[in-house]
């Protein structure tokens, strides 16, 4: 009961702040509300017993990625926001389209029959359980991701540096 209330609280928080990410004129405000969205999603992951992913969400998303965003916003010193808050026909069409997409998805999701309640194993979502599967079944993608991160580091330095 408390878990369900917490789920709806975190969900409403994430949705409200994600709307502010889109609506805010100042990119710094967008980035700060993005932190709250990520923290709310981390709470939802914890409620879903995904303990490792909840911790990673806080460390990688709310920590590293948003700090990177803030660094770039400060570095570029964009000054006053130039976007005007006006409702163009294109924006209205885009809004209607995403509302339609959302409604269509909800119709599909509502058709889903509830899955049989499965009992969670002892190591569900823990570092041990996820680590075991990462290093057995998913070891090749895991190594590929390490290569991807190496390429991203080198690529980011090469692209962002003025002179090599």
């Amino acid at each position: 009961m408390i878990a369900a209330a917490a789920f709806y609280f975190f969900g409403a928080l994430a949705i409200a702040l994600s709307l502010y990410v889109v609506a805010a004129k100042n990119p710094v405000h967008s980035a700060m509300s993005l932190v709250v969205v990520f923290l709310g999603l981390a709470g939802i992951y914890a409620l879903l017993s995904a303990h490792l992913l909840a911790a990673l969400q806080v460390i990688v998303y709310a920590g590293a990625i948003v700090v990177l965003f803030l660094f770039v916003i400060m570095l570029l010193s964009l000054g006053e926001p130039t976007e005007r808050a006006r409702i163009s026909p294109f924006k209205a069409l885009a809004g209607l389209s995403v509302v339609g997409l959302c409604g269509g998805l909800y119709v599909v999701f509502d058709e889903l029959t509830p899955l049989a309640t499965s009992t969670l194993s002892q190591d569900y979502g823990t570092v041990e359980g996820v680590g075991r599967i990462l290093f057995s079944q998913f070891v090749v993608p895991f190594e590929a991701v390490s290569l991807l991160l190496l390429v991203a580091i080198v690529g980011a330095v090469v692209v962002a540096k003025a002179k090599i």
Partner: protein
Amino acid sequence: MSDLGVPLSHILSLSAILFSVGLFAVVTRRNALVVFMGVELMLNAANVVFLGFARAFGDNAAHAIAFFVIAVAAAEAAVGLAIIIAVFRSRNTVNVDEIDALKF
């Protein structure tokens, strides 16, 4: 759902709403940084689906996939923000409407 007391369709609906908001940010905002934030929102919506179904099936494999999504999002943010810095250096703007040199 086992003991959470929330139907799976509500978890999936949360993900659908987050994905739609992210998509709206990508197609309507002109600031390239906010466009990137929209992409991050969409990736997070995908993770919510993975973890919701993982909980329903009691399977750890989706956690590994969500882990990979987070790693790819980190790489994408690093390279994408580097590209924004490079574009800003040569064009002095991050407005995606003014960056149209590749437009035919």
